[in-house]
């Protein structure tokens, strides 16, 4: 509801300028300033405050004081022009319009599924190692959880091999969260490389991040760094990568998108790729 619009088109109603706000502000300031100087200042401030309140009140109630300002006729408003009226357009959509290949990709769901599947593979391989080398399924779990332990290097062997519910909880949380996150990444990025997604996700990526860990594990988790056997570790990461990659690729029919341009695979939204909204139904 804008009262201005009910007036004749060559006049606009605006709130009237008024001195009461500045008077009230000054009065309030003086009230406080009196605490720093003298009571007389506060007294003066109080008077101005009261005056300001009353004056302002009467500006607004019972009806707002306004002024009328002349406004030009609509037609005199300046035109909106640009020096670059042409726009480049991606031609992608037209080429695929008839092929009816589903453009929609759901990276998140596929990624989460892939990550969870991969987490199972990794866990199986790690626990297998634990049983074979140390006779305990809890060995790798506790090593992972030791990331938050101070002085973890002082933990005795028997401790690392036995069951601890809190450590299991911490390790599971870390394991699942990281797997989901990496799975999400797979869901998003594997479709961008439709030719050899499994090589990339199953082999190259795990080896890469294992390499990164190799250099930094000493500071991140010293106990794991001390006890880790890299061959098993890399194997478990590759296990994750292959399983997660397979699940993602299967879900998103990545291979069938080999002929799509990168822009589409990366989910770029632009005219030419996006469908035009129907003029009638658009109304948000």
């Amino acid at each position, binding site marked *: 509801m804008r009262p201005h619009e009910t007036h004749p088109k060559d006049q606009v109603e605006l709130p009237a300028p008024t001195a009461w706000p500045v008077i009230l502000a000054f009065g309030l300031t003086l009230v406080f300033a009196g605490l720093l100087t003298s009571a007389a200042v506060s007294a003066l401030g109080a008077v101005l405050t009261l005056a300001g309140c009353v004056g302002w009140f009467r500006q607004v109630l019972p009806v707002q004081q306004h002024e009328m300002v002349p406004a030009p006729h609509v037609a005199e408003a300046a035109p909106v022009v640009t*020096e*670059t009226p*042409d*726009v*480049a*357009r*991606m031609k992608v959509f037209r080429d695929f319009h008839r092929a009816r290949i589903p453009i929609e*990709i759901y*990276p*998140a769901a596929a*990624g989460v599924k892939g990550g969870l599947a991969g987490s199972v593979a990794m866990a199986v391989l790690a626990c297998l190692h634990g049983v074979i080398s140390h006779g305990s399924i809890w060995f790798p779990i506790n090593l992972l959880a030791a*990331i*938050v*332990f*101070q*002085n*973890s290097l002082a933990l005795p062997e028997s401790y690392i091999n036995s069951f601890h519910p809190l450590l299991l909880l911490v390790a599971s949380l*870390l394991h699942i*969260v*990281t797997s989901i*996150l*990496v799975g*999400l*990444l797979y*869901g*998003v*990025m594997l*479709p*961008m490389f439709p030719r050899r997604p499994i090589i990339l996700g199953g082999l190259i990526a795990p080896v890469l991040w294992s390499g990164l860990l*190799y*250099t*930094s594990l*000493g*500071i*991140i*988790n010293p106990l794991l760094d001390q006890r880790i056997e890299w061959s098993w570790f890399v194997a478990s990461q590759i296990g994750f990568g292959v399983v997660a990659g397979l699940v993602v690729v299967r879900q998103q029919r990545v291979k069938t998108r080999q002929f799509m341009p990168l822009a589409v695979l*990366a*989910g*770029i*939204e*632009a*005219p*030419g790729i*996006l469908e035009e909204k129907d003029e009638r139904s658009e109304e948000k």
Partner: protein
Amino acid sequence: MRSTTWAVLAGALFSRLAPAEASLPTNIFAPVSTPAQLVHGLSLFVLTVTGVIFVVVFSLLAYSAIKFRRRPDDDGREPFQIYGSDQLELAWTVIPIIIVMVLFLTSARVIHTVQDARKPKSAIDVTVVGHQFWWEFRYPQYGFVTANELHVPVSDPKHPTPTYLKLLSADTDHSFWVPRLAGKTDLIPNHPNEMWIDPHETGLFLGQCAQYCGTQHAKMLLRVYVQSREDFDAWVRSQQQAPAPVSPGDAAAGQRVFQSTACINCHAVSGTNANGKFGPDLTHLMSRSTIASGAVPNTPANLRGWIGNPETFKPGSLMPAMNLTPKELDEVTTYLLTLH
């Protein structure tokens, strides 16, 4: 092992800041005590991670800033109007989340390691009381009090003898910061804190108050002497002794001036009737190499100047000018010079 290689590489990278001890006495990249070393390790990791992020993002920004500038031969059309990409958004959300997780977990571990370390029985206890603008050091195990210059024994990593500092304050907030020994911990009134150091090398380590505490916050300096066990024990023994009786002459006259002027209201000299707590304990004043918490070296001339008018060295310090006559000043100074 790998961590050593890494530390060497990182050290080479920061070689400008690597210790040339004499010239960079408060360099945080030259730790000699476990808390400082733990922080150092974490800091190198954090620097590396953020460094990599910086290089990647900086390159992308620079690339796009250069590659996508409008060419002189531009065709006058607007470029493709791209609204976004949920996939890319997801990717560059997930990767930072993973990075944050790793940084958080590593930091949490170091926090625990430093803050929740178990105190061994061999630890030395020192109670540090922060004052405006000087440090009081009490050694409850040995029964003496000193000021401004802390002595601790060196700690062998295989049989650690750390020093545990209990941090209190008599007035405002202060902060104990000797970078090569540990991160800083604040001294807050009514809020006791604790920190520990276990220096692996002997030597003198410098620091200063790191929390604004008033006018002379800048000159609340710290000197920590890390000594071999024998030297430390010898120092303790000397601190425990009361001063020898003063020989007659100027020194005795000075002691009379000292005891009849307000000095004894603020200062303590064990074995005498001076037991003020507002100012530093002067019993072993001459065992210190500086006065007024590092403001000036401890020489007879400076001592005389200080007592005459502290404002010349440390304007705003809480010791008033004592308005002594030049003769009284000489005598008091002579007396103080006997307090080894």
